[in-house]
């Protein structure tokens, strides 16, 4: 491959014309303050770059000359000039990719990869979500945390005469149990999320 992409002939001709046009205008061109190559400027003009054309609008004569060159190139092409340029680049990129990327056996499916596939698939993903909601939230947090554990504490202290402060403390204890339960669920979620991100 060459270091320079060769575009279809009408585009190459237009590039050459614009390059020589830029050369002729020199410092008096409205585009002289751009520090990139003339070829690149020519291609940007052919792609109707809004900024360059805005700058050209300040000099109607220069704008008209470039418009003529663009129209000449466009008339010789089946597709719009910007599409033809993009297609040429993409073809070159794809061909370069095909010769520089070697496709080998993909790494063995790890546990995380399998989990990732299962969780992103709508069918299995929603089923897993429902299982987590039922067992993780309803059963574990609801029944076990808020039900079983809190009941146990309440039963333990139910025969005692508790004052207001002790009742508050008991309430807080129940909150702590719930917090621990929720935290456990949260940690599980974080592990799954990390696993997903690492993929």
């Amino acid at each position, binding site marked *: 491959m060459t270091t*320079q992409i060769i575009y279809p002939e009408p585009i190459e001709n237009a590039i050459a014309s614009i390059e020589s046009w830029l050369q002729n205008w020199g410092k008096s061109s409205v585009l002289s303050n751009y520090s*990139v190559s003339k070829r690149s400027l020519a291609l940007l003009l052919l792609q109707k770059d809004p900024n360059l054309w805005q700058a050209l609008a300040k000099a109607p004569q220069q704008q008209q000359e470039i418009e003529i060159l663009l129209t000449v190139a466009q008339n010789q092409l089946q597709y719009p000039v910007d599409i033809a340029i993009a297609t040429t680049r993409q073809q070159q990129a794809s061909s370069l990719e095909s010769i*520089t990327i070697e496709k080998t056996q993909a790494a063995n499916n790890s546990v995380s990869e399998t989990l990732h596939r299962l969780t992103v698939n709508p069918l299995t993903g929603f089923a897993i979500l429902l299982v987590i909601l039922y067992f993780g939230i309803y059963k574990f947090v609801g029944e076990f945390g808020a039900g079983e554990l809190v009941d146990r504490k309440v039963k333990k202290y139910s025969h005692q005469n508790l004052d207001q402060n002790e009742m508050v403390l008991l309430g807080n204890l129940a909150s702590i149990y719930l917090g621990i339960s929720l935290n456990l669920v949260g940690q599980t979620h974080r592990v799954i999320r990390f696993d997903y991100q690492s993929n």
Partner: protein
Amino acid sequence: MNCHQCHKNCHSDQHKHNKHIWWRRLRKQHSPESTLILDGNIALVGMPNVGKSVLFNRLTGMYVDVSNYPGTTVEVSKGIAKIKEYQIRVIDTPGMYSLVPISEEEQVARNLLLHESLDAVVHVVDAKNLGRMLPLTFQLMEAGLSVILAINMIDEAEQLGLKVQREALQLELDLPVALMSATLNRGIRELKHTIIKYLSSPSANILDNWQMAQ
């Protein structure tokens, strides 16, 4: 002042990766003041979500917002990378697909490339989608910029069974190619080495210099 504009290395995240930072600081204190300063300007460019900002963090030690979705960087961040005795200004740019801008962020990155005086442009690409990224490399080369191709996420590509033939690619493109994984801190040292070689002898054959550095 925003966190990303601060030149102090105060973010805790970097300490994880700079195991010997206390030793570096000690060495820095004892090193002679008159270090060779290379007024190099490099810009990190590439499509959105390819890891430019992670690489910026790795090169400069400064923190800029990083996320797992495209379009996080909406303004230009500048920092200093200290590589050996050199100090290089690194510019992190918003993601761009082409030199012809569509969004305002692309416009910012494009203006920087077209108007700033840059010694090198590090084009960061995703190894998994090389074919989709290379058209921008071509455009940067056409613009006459000195391009270093940094192929990021090489670990993810390997997982998918994709192996990038670095030598073949750099021969085809005639520019230095570095393989790396910025999040894993893999290949960063080689990239730094490439940047230094590139900047210290701009008139010489860059590719030869790069190969000698290997």
